[in-house]
């Protein structure tokens, strides 16, 4: 049952990313050129609702679908890794226009060269895991 729920959440996410054009390379290029409000509108409005949702969950005793109390974990803090990792990510995002979510959406939409991206994104994750102890954190 839960698997079906996650699957449908994923479908909603995929349709949303494709139809709102957040998965388009062109939109990401335009965003970094600051020539359109579109992507800032998507991220900004998601964030506005996201803040209301997250802060409401933290301040009330709302239960999960399965009747359990909800816990939202804090992100691990390490200024160097967040910043350096973020810069690496941004360089890649602006070049190929796809972050991990859209990679899968675009694969489904039939842009098969995205498989190259998926392979190397997985490889990049692997290399990070291999050398993480030697990187500044």
């Amino acid at each position: 049952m839960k698997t079906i729920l996650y699957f449908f959440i994923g479908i909603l996410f995929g349709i949303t990313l494709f139809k709102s054009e957040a998965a388009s390379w062109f939109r990401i290029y335009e965003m970094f050129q600051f020539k359109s409000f579109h992507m800032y509108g998507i991220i900004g409005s998601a964030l506005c609702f996201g803040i209301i949702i997250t802060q409401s969950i933290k301040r009330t005793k709302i239960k999960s679908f399965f009747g359990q109390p909800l816990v939202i974990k804090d992100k691990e803090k390490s200024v160097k890794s967040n910043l350096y990792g973020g810069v690496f990510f941004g360089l890649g995002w602006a070049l190929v226009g796809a972050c991990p979510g859209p990679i899968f959406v675009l694969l489904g939409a039939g842009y098969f060269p995205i498989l190259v991206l998926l392979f190397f994104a997985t490889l990049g994750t692997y290399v990070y895991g291999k050398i993480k102890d030697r990187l500044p954190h």
Partner: protein
Amino acid sequence: MNWIFEPWPWYIGGPLIALVMLLLLLSEKKFGMSSNLRTICAALGAGKSTPFFDYNWKDQQWNLVVITGALVGGFIAANYMSNQAIVTLHPDVVSQLHGMGIQDAGKAYMPEKLFGDTSWTDGKVLSILALGGFLVGFGARYAGGCTSGHAISGLSNLQLPSAIAVVGFFVGGIIMNHFLIQFLL
């Protein structure tokens, strides 16, 4: 119902992304897509030689289901919910991209030059996809998350690490977009 087949405006897309996060939180999960790349490494056996991938990846199978759903969602949206998927861009961006050899700017959803059938036999394009993919995968894990995990989930939870990561995303993105990409494409 025609609006379904048109591109969706930001004020539909953004709130729906927040809804996806809400549904995942109510399912006792979190909204973060790059973790799946780590899970794939772990599932392929990377944990045998690397402690970072040595964990019970089966606990993360739910997220692989989400990302599989996203793939199916992309298929449905592209094939059954779009008349012509064309991204309308700012005219300045269109002429700029024409100048960089991307002729279908303003007439397509994705640039044919990078994501068309010819990409497979174009060494330069393959290198771009490989480099960009590597940076996305490496950077997301180094930063502890990507656009969904940091820019949406983390900032919604008012997390300073996420704010720092998002600053990093834009520093890297602006450097690539304004100073490097014209030499790479």
